[in-house]
């Protein structure tokens, strides 16, 4: 298969490491060669958290500037910040609902206007899928299921060779029973929203 370089970005606590790990497991179970990279430790204390899933004919675990085929971002400011990893052929899937950093609360910076920025991004990449991820997670019954919404949006876009069935199977085997229903619902809502926007 062709190489797919999928970059995940989020804020500590949003669960993007779990999402990239699950995608990696699902890919492996389909016999797709996969490497997943993550950053742990100090970087996680409320800071930006990046992970990458590389599938197909590729050995390197990380993605260089301008080389992401897909960006899945859990937070719009982080979409803007990491855009240098993308090129004009990149598919960008982003949550459109901000989680302002503390520097904004302290008056050390201004949160950029989301709609306006997303419009700019849209014209510079192959495709932009922007969804109200937190609302969908609420609707699924668990505000912490944003990562499942975003994973659903990625699989729903059809941009990676992992099927919905295999992804849901992987989610099912690695989710605690209490969260299973809301996680699967969040995944479905993300997938539907992304198909509608594709």
């Amino acid at each position, binding site marked *: 298969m062709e190489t797919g370089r999928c970059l995940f970005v989020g804020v500590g606590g949003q669960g993007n490491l779990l999402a990239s790990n699950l995608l990696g497991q699902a890919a492996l179970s389909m016999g797709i060669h996969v490497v997943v*990279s993550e950053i742990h430790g*100090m*970087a996680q204390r409320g800071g930006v958290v990046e992970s990458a899933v590389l599938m197909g*004919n590729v050995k*390197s675990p990380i*993605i260089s500037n301008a080389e992401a085929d897909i960006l899945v971002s859990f937070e719009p400011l982080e979409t*803007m910040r990491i855009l240098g990893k993308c090129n004009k052929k990149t598919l960008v899937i982003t949550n459109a609902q901000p989680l302002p950093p503390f520097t*904004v609360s302290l008056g050390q*910076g201004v949160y950029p206007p989301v709609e306006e920025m997303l419009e700019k991004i849209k014209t510079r990449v192959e495709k932009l899928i922007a969804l109200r991820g937190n609302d969908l997670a609420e609707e699924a019954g668990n505000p912490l299921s944003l990562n499942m919404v975003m994973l659903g949006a990625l699989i729903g876009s059809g941009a990676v060779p992992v099927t919905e069935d295999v992804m849901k199977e992987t989610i099912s085997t690695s989710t605690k029973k209490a969260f299973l229903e809301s996680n699967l619902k969040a995944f479905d809502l993300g997938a539907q929203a992304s198909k509608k926007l594709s």
Partner: protein
Amino acid sequence: MHKLLTDSPGTEMLLLGNEAIARGALEAGLAFATCYPGTPSSEIPEQFFAISKETDLYFEYSTNEKVAMEVAAGAAISGLRTMVTMKHVGLNVAADPLMTLAYTGVEAGMVIVNADDPYLFSSQNEQDNRYYARLSSLPMLEPTNTQEMKDWTKAAFELSEELKLPVILRTTTRLAHVRGGVKLGELQPRKVKTTFKKDPFHYVCVPAVSRELHKLLLRKYDQAVEKSENSPMNEIIGNGPWGIVANGVSVNYVMDAVSDLGIEDKVSILKLGFSYPMPRDLCVRFMEPLEKVLVVEELEPVVEHELKTIAQETGLTLEIKGKGVGELSRLFEYNPGMVRKGIAEYFEIDYKAPLPVDTSDFPALPGRPPNLCAGCPHRATFYAVKQVYGTDAIHPTDIGCYTLGLLPPLSMGDLVICMGSSVSSSCGFSRATDQKVASFIGDSTFFHSGITGLVNAVHNNHKFTLVIMDNGTTAMTGHQPHPGVEPETTGLDLPKVSVEDVVRGCGVKDVHVVRPYNLKKTIEAVRASMEYDGLSVIVSKEYCPLFARRIGKARKARPFYVNLDKCKNHRDCINLLACPAMFLEGEQVHIDKNLCIGCTVCAQVCPENAIMPLKG
């Protein structure tokens, strides 16, 4: 059952590099493991900690890396297969036993896992620990992916036993924290007890013994060279005229670049997996037919220099380069694009790097630095110390979450160099200046290397205040236990060593124990210690809130809110504490009830008493 105990050889699992190392050790019949945690090595001992609770594997979190190395040495010299893990700077702490353990050697296999951190994702420096192999003459293996991390860990035990030497397995962040498919092998039974055979003229390193042992080490080194020459871990790939040499994660960048550039038939790649001792003859055979060689290695030009030496000794005159080609430098980590560009430039291949999305017209984006968590007790402690000491005092700090206290508005941190340095550097600061000194250290770091500094401060009559921030766990690296933790929080029946008892036992006379969420009493204690003419210690005790939640001891407090009828918008809460549960909406501060843990500290800071617990 722990997933790494899955006994089905041939099964492929997605494993984190660090999990793969742990699995490799289990497949080698590991009996005894020690560590001090440190990113990016911590997930290896995490596996052993869990597995030791359900098997007869012995595992301990040791007080520091030197101790961990020596505990492991005792077991390995006795005859048990042993592993000790640490981050790169941890090996500095363990360097003393390392150097002479190389002389004595070991009886059973001993593998030292060393995790380097190029780009300093979670470290105070990015030293290249390949030099430790050279300094100690110990063999070093550098796997390049998760499968090799498992397989070569097993091989490292066998190598160690053949040479009767500890073997260093070196990883970097991009190996330790990468997940990939790993085909499992067979689990081996463990030999968990043994009998030590006395041999004092081999193990007691007095000068007369060590003179002989140094000769022995050099003989073992020669054997290691033989093994390196013939090891499948060192591999020549391809037979083109352009040479590329790489180690560790860079091997992947090179392989991808060669494929992307379509130059498979033009290159010969030397993959150095058994990277020390260097396979000298193999390097000569590799270089002889080549036009020129590019060395792709992160951090220091270690291999580059050794290849140049080998070439000079054998009369080879081909060009050998590494650092300085393209963007390949001694700084930070490499990446696929950088390596592709370097190779293209060096071998003069037409190549255009892809263009990133243009963001030059984007507004300045607000930063998102890491921050102390909502309700973190360190914030309260920093606030109290700052209230008393003002801004002119010197605040040496140490390694842990509380290092983040350096960020504004707390701005409490003037020096960090290594674990334990807060205490000892305070001795120097307080003698060299007339400024007040109040330093910070965490509980785990205090046990790691703060105690000797404290004894020094007592004995040499230094005058400063040491604040020990005791949050009941090793928070930064993922809540590992240490000697001061409550036994009930670990599920292990191990005695607790009290921080306060240690402090008093060291001879400190002025000792205060405070609960930092009680600001008034904490400030009183800080003031008393500042006015005390001598050395003071304040033990500030409160659980890390993340840890408390994990062990079911979370505060049962209600979250707080800002009462808009009372708030006069002084903003002391947000300007002085900067708790991430607070946010501005327009000009008004609010508290996010989902983040607030009810620590009450902001309510105590508010001059209008406008911050109150939510009802119901």
